[in-house]
């Protein structure tokens, strides 16, 4: 019917005779040696989901300990290991792998490619990341043993020197931290290089950079940012190991070394890192919101420009984590300004999303609900970020529960919400089955209620002077009731996540069959079967606009007539 040579999708024949079906061992072997981007994407996502549950359990233990003052559930040493592992796990073994897992699965499909640019490097990167995680958690088995939480790192996820030097951290806890992250860092670097090469060099015919889906655009930007984000941390960790094992003096204050350069290097990594975590969340929202309000994204070029702006400006704000270390007033003022400025392109994105909703026909599927939650939370998180950028106020709020509230608003309220949204949205594509919508809505509402109970309250704890990283607190400081409330919210979130985990697993067998395009969407991944064949597309697609499937469905009103 159409003049467009779009690939014909193709129902995969699922009925193989028993004699030809592979054994369990053969199936496992296939998964271990796979270089297929879809399988690696699924491996990343399963890996992250596992660690989400582990780090979530760590968080619940933290909240049980803090529910009452002078509680004795966890000793100081155990608590310090738990909060360090919670942070390190969530950033490196949950956040990054989830988002790179999504990238792995979806980017080649969205650009009409057969696989990533370097499939074997892809597999190698995954296994490096996986090994890094394994190494980090192996630390639980050392030292005083499992119940004393072994040799797990206990220096905070930010591992400030000189606390991490041999003089103050004897034993191997810090070494596990540094080595595990160096190894998984190389994996991350490999994936970033792969994504960049794939997006630049493997787009199908007609897909110029300005016709790529925004998900792919943002993952390209994230990958470029990753190149200069993870590497400073790797460098600093090498320096730490040189200090710890080769007698180096990078951070050795006794020899004239400086704690401050660790802090600078860490945050030169640490700040762009949070953009590495949040930009893929934007990427997911950029795909889901238009589909469920039945309108193209408002202001595509502006969204691209704003994202590129964020990438650059985010490299100049790191010292807003350091307002209290004693920089000059001029430096503090500079970083205040740059931090406020990075809020401008970020705000533009929020406005564009609202403009997308405006005039649409909004369908409140679970994926969409999580995206709406993301919008609301990210607005608040951005505003508390502005509050923290006001350096004098940060002199009060830094290292208090206000900061914890702020960054959990971003990392849970925005990033995790978008991860959930992405899972509900693309699960049908990857498995051929829809997740259960009723359970999804239970998950959403319980999680949102628990989230607000916990993290709204935390802001007040910070304002009332409660610092972070403390295993207990004095009963006469007025923090008792609020801490209990925060802990209760945590439990509610835990229940919600369990509902999600059940839905995630059960739907694989009992979910409604999805078909190629259950959401009536417009990008290339929905033109192929669910799940896609291993080669993705029978013929290389050729596209002429940002929404090739829209063009196919609306030949009388194609996008390319309107796109500038």
């Amino acid at each position, binding site marked *: *019917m*159409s*003049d467009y040579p779009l690939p014909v999708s193709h129902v995969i024949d699922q009925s193989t005779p028993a004699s030809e079906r592979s054994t369990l061992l053969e199936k496992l072997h296939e998964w271990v040696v796979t270089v297929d981007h879809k399988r690696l994407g699924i491996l990343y996502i399963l890996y992250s989901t596992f660690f989400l549950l582990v780090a979530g359990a760590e968080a619940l233990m933290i909240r049980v300990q803090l529910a009452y003052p002078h509680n004795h559930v966890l000793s100081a040493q155990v608590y310090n290991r738990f909060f360090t592992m919670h942070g390190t796990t969530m950033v490196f073994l949950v956040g990054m792998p989830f988002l790179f897992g999504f990238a792995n699965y979806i980017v080649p499909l969205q650009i009409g490619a057969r696989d990533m*640019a*370097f499939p074997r490097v892809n597999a190698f990167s995954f296994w490096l990341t996986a090994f890094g995680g394994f190494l980090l958690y192996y630390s639980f088995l050392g030292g005083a043993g499992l119940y004393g939480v072994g040799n797990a790192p206990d220096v905070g996820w930010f591992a400030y020197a000189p606390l991490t030097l041999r003089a103050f951290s004897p034993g191997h806890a810090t070494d596990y931290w540094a080595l595990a992250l160096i190894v998984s860092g190389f994996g991350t*670097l490999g994936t*970033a*290089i*792969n994504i*960049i*090469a*794939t997006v*630049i*060099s*493997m*787009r199908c*015919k*007609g897909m110029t950079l300005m016709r790529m889906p925004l998900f792919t655009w943002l993952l390209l930007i994230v*990958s*470029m940012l990753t*190149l*200069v984000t*993870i*590497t*400073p941390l*790797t*460098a*600093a960790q*090498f*320096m730490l190991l*040189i*200090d710890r094992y*080769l*007698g*180096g*003096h*990078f951070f050795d204050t006794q*020899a*004239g*070394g*400086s704690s401050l*350069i660790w802090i600078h*290097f860490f945050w*030169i990594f640490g700040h762009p890192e949070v953009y590495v975590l949040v930009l893929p969340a934007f990427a997911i929202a950029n795909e889901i919101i238009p589909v469920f309000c039945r309108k193209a994204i408002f202001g595509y070029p502006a969204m691209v420009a704003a994202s590129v702006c964020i990438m650059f400006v985010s490299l100049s704000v790191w010292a807003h984590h350091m307002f209290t270390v004693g920089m000059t007033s001029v430096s503090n003022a500079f970083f205040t300004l740059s931090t406020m400025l990075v809020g401008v392109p970020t705000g533009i994105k929020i406005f564009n999303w609202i403009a997308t909703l405006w005039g649409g026909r909004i369908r409140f599927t679970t994926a969409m609900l999580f995206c709406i939650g993301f919008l609301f939370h990210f607005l608040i998180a951005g505003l508390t970020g502005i509050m923290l950028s006001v350096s004098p106020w940060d002199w009060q709020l830094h290292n208090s529960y206000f900061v914890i509230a702020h960054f959990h608003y971003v990392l849970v309220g925005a990033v995790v919400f978008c991860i959930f949204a992405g899972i509900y949205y693309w699960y049908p594509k990857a498995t051929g089955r829809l997740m259960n919508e009723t359970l999804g809505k239970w998950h959403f509402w319980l999680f949102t209620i628990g989230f607000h109970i916990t993290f709204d309250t935390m802001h007040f704890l910070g304002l009332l002077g409660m610092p972070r990283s403390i295993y207990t607190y004095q009963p006469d400081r007025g923090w008792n009731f609020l801490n209990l409330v925060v802990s209760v919210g945590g439990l509610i979130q835990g229940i919600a996540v369990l509902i999600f985990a059940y839905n995630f697993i059960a739907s694989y067998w009992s979910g409604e069959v999805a078909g190629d395009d259950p959401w009536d969407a417009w990008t290339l991944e929905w033109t192929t079967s669910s799940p896609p064949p291993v080669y993705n597309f029978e013929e290389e697609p050729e596209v*002429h606009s940002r929404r090739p499937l829209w063009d196919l469905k609306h*030949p*009388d009103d*194609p996008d*390319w*007539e309107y796109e500038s």
Partner: protein
Amino acid sequence: MSSIPVSHPERTVEWHLPNKRRVGMTALIVGESAIFTIFVVAYVFYMGKSLSGPTPAQVLEVPILATICLLSSSITIWRAEKAIEDDRIGSFTVWLGATIALAAVFLMGTAFEWKKLIYQDGLTISTNLFGTTFYSLVGLHATHVVVGMFLLTSTFVLSLFGWVDSRQSERFGVVALYWHFVDAVWIVVFTVVYLIGR
């Protein structure tokens, strides 16, 4: 069949995208540059701050020969690139060999320099801030030279077996790109350590 004409500007578009291997290597170079930058920043930050021990001015000699060799190797590898593009494999092998030889001279220069520093001047990585930052930075660079030599030597051996021709010219170009990066880093390290820092 739609009766509305569905023609649009670029029906049979020329579709050329950059070579994926070059893009990948460029991305790797960007990442590695960030690592080097951090080590250079540490070196610069700690210039003059050592509390004891030998200073750069006291013990460092400008490695002129080694530097000339390494920078010349960029020229020889460029000649090798040109040769393989034109399918002149004999010439390619010679230029590649020259590159490897020059790199080897550079590494030997570094080795002798470090021997002198360690045994004669008593400067090790744990001596003072200068020692720590010097060996880390120069050592990181030398490691990259070693990796590069491995790539070059493998190609050289394959070429001796007659298994290399112009069909691999793009891939060799990627190796050459890495090599040029290694040289560029040396220019920065040389300037910071041996010119400014002394």
